[in-house]
């Protein structure tokens, strides 16, 4: 499984845009990049997934450069409820399946949002 590196922690004020960058230098051709959010005492929750360029949904944007060796999760105008741990994952499709992945979560980035 590809190894990912992301900052251990970040701080932000409410209303600011937060960008969390993840490096994955040994990403393979078939690997997708996925970000998850985890609150205390809960399992991680899917935020966004991409393969290349830019992906945007109602929660966040994901920027992936052409070499795919890094990715940046962008959270617009964060609120206190965005305080959580954010994981960057790189994984492969199992047996060319459309739904199977074996993902290495790593340690994540602990984001603290304050008023």
């Amino acid at each position, binding site marked *: 499984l590809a190894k990912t590196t992301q900052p251990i922690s970040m701080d932000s004020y409410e209303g600011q845009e937060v960008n969390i960058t993840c490096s994955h230098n040994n990403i393979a051709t078939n690997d997708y990049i996925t970000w998850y959010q985890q609150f205390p005492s809960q399992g991680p929750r*899917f935020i966004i997934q991409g393969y290349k360029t830019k992906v945007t949904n109602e929660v966040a944007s994901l920027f992936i450069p052409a070499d795919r060796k890094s990715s940046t999760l962008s959270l617009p105008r964060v609120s206190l409820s965005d305080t959580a741990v954010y994981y960057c994952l790189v994984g492969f499709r199992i047996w060319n399946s459309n739904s199977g992945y*074996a993902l*290495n979560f790593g340690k994540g980035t602990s984001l603290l949002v304050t008023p």
Partner: protein
Amino acid sequence: DAGITQSPRHKVTETGTPVTLRCHQTENHRYMYWYRQDPGHGLRLIHYSYGVKDTDKGEVSDGYSVSRSKTEDFLLTLESATSSQTSVYFCAISRETHGYTFGSGTRLTVV
């Protein structure tokens, strides 16, 4: 929780005893996973399954075994629990459009 139930939610057991954690899903997903989460280590993959009786090892599989005799159930067994296996265990399924969906976790304490 998207139809994923983990049991028990909490368990305290003694060193050397066998322990089985259960993950039950109601949505007929083919792929299921067991992770453990520890401070300073994040989430680490223990085992995963890609179908009934089809399983494979993850990053930290030593000391654990799994079984999947039915699509809906994925069992994680600690044959002889050790204190190093004190952790929070998460079960997950994967779906094409939303990656993994996790259960609520099982907090296991080995004393």
